[in-house]
């Protein structure tokens, strides 16, 4: 996390260089957004449901420490062991300790953005523990030695042919085989053998219920379920913010999650785990890693409501055209851009600017996070800390000076239009003119409207 990561604009430009692939990526995600629209429309009280969800989360966050203690008590009473980790380092050591204690050498891990956040895989592998990502999309990116580009659709940046080649190399499928059915079948055969071999299953958590100590895990493939029922040790990893107060509140969130994320009415498997299965052990690891700090920030607290549905990514016109990897953050897209500065202010200063502020993310978000406003607020924080280019800072001061003096504003406009008219085209459209790289500038009229300019 310490190395300076690449800024968003050049990474996005590179993604767009492959025009055909970028167009496919845009269309594929637009299609998911379209399915989301239809799924949402099938619930007559959709907007009211979102309102309920945001209010439940608002309330939970306002009393988060109390609910966490309630959750801990209930989960313990049900037979689970609860652990707390302040940061990724402590988290990794803790999980490794549990695995070592149980003599685990092989782990089946289902999708958990939190383990990505903590870079758990490389750590465990360095300790000699084999980690198999079992979600098909995550398996693909694991075999390809990269990171998920989307929190719900981890391999959306790859097309069939690319995945076919990855499987050919790693699973021995036939060269040129790019049939989704056959590749999925190959992964099924490979993975099902691995569950039996694994001595522990690690999963993420979609929701946790304070009053009952219940964990809810939602998947379509049954991979998380296999991971938490076949081996005798289940380690569930969750951020502090996953809580809802009451068991019945789950109805609100299970109705929203899949419809928002993939346009399904519900995920194929919505599994409720209250305590371990007979003869098994359940360990729950709670992670802070900046969440308590985010809770303290008035303008940004709402970001903790996120249920990781991915809808804001699918609708985001920038995400669709720049790919998840261009964000260089474990969670990409609009929500990633508002979460990133909280934990890595220095490395993520272009992310709040990677948005046209169209506001579509805010509209689709099932828990009504004011995403586009938060992007704007982070820009303010960055400007306040002097973390925007000097040219912009200087420009802002000049602009303020000019725009509060109408005569100067008029004069400035005149000079700008005049210089645009008389400067040779080659000079106007030099490499310094990013606007003009692939666009014409407007044709400047002789007089501005306020200066008497008429058609």
């Amino acid at each position, binding site marked *: 996390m310490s190395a300076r990561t690449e800024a968003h604009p050049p990474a996005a430009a590179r993604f767009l260089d492959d025009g055909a692939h970028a167009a496919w990526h845009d269309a594929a995600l637009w299609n998911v957004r379209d399915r989301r629209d239809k799924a949402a429309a099938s619930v007559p009280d959709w907007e009211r449901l979102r309102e309920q969800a945001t209010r439940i989360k608002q309330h939970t966050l306002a009393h988060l420490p109390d609910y966490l203690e309630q959750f801990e008590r209930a989960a313990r009473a049900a037979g689970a062991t609860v652990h707390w980790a302040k940061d990724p380092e402590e988290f990794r050591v803790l999980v490794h300790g549990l695995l070592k204690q149980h003599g685990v050498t092989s782990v089946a891990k289902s999708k958990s953005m939190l383990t990505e956040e903590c870079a758990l895989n490389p750590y465990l592998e360095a300790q000699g523990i084999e980690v198999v990502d079992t979600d098909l999309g995550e398996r693909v990116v694991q075999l390809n030695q990269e990171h998920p580009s989307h929190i719900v*659709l981890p391999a959306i940046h790859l097309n*069939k042919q690319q995945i076919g080649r990855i499987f050919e190399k790693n699973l021995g499928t036939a060269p040129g085989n790019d049939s989704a059915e056959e590749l*999925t079948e190959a992964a099924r055969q490979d993975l099902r053998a691995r*569950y039996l071999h694994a001595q522990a299953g690690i999963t993420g958590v979609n929701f946790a219920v304070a009053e009952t100590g219940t964990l809810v895990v939602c998947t379509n493939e049954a991979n998380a379920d296999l991971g938490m029922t076949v081996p005798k040790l289940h380690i569930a990893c969750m951020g502090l913010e996953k809580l809802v107060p009451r068991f019945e509140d789950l109805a609100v969130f299970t109705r929203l999650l899949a419809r928002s994320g993939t346009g399904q009415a519900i995920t194929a498997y919505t599994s409720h785990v209250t305590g371990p299965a007979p003869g098994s052990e359940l360990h729950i690891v709670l992670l802070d890693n900046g969440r308590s700090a985010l809770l303290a920030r008035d303008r940004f607290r709402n970001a903790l409501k996120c249920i990781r549905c991915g809808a804001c990514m699918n609708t985001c016109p920038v995400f669709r055209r720049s790919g998840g990897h261009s964000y260089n953050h474990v969670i990409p897209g609009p929500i990633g851009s508002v979460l990133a500065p909280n934990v890595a202010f220095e490395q993520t200063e272009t992310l709040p600017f990677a948005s046209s502020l169209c506001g579509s993310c805010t509209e689709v978000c099932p828990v009504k996070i004011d995403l586009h406003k938060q992007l704007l607020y982070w820009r303010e924080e960055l400007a306040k800390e002097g973390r925007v280019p000097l040219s912009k800072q200087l420009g802002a001061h000049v602009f303020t000076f000019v725009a509060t003096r109408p005569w100067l504003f008029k004069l400035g406009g005149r000079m700008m239009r005049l210089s645009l008219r008389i400067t040779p085209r080659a000079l106007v459209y030099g490499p310094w003119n990013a606007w003009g790289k692939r666009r014409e500038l407007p044709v400047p009229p002789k007089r501005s409207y306020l200066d008497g300019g008429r058609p």
Partner: protein
Amino acid sequence: MSSRDTILKALREAAPGGVEAPAMYTPDAPAADLLESFEFRLKACGGELAVLRSVEELAPLLSARWPDLAERSVYSTNPAAVPTSLPEAAFTDTAALQHLDLAIVDGCECVAENAAVWVPAGAVPHRSLLYLAEHLVLIVRRDALLPTMHEAYARLAQRGDTSGYFIAGPSKTSDIAQCLVIGAQGPRSCLVCMVGDA
């Protein structure tokens, strides 16, 4: 100070307090007929529905579907209808369950808006068999059909049934270039048999 206490202390300082919990949610009444909607949703997620008058109709239905049913490995929570073919010891041996062809399991609440069926964790001798089975048959009662998740959760909360699974159709994935494939890692098919009267 332990990490737990450090975290809780930080949260206490950060949590704004106030903000009442909203009242329980009352969903809008669904427009469509519940059974119709359940069937539509189940088909949409790759499952199938059979409406039976009584559980006696189950055996002939399954035999017609799997003519070699007698030779297959079957687990059944409803031995009166279809018997289990596995030895008792297999139920706790995941390696043996790996080759389970068919699991026939009693479900409880069915949800019309999304075709989810609640299977309590205690309904099966080993939870993994729900996912290791190549095919899954869920037997539910017609009068357990509810409009939305709200009614279903209200019932679960009332009887304290907090360990279990909502299952909607077979396992599936679209992770390869957004192409939907049914039968990802769990069951390749999911047949819901609805028995009795509304």
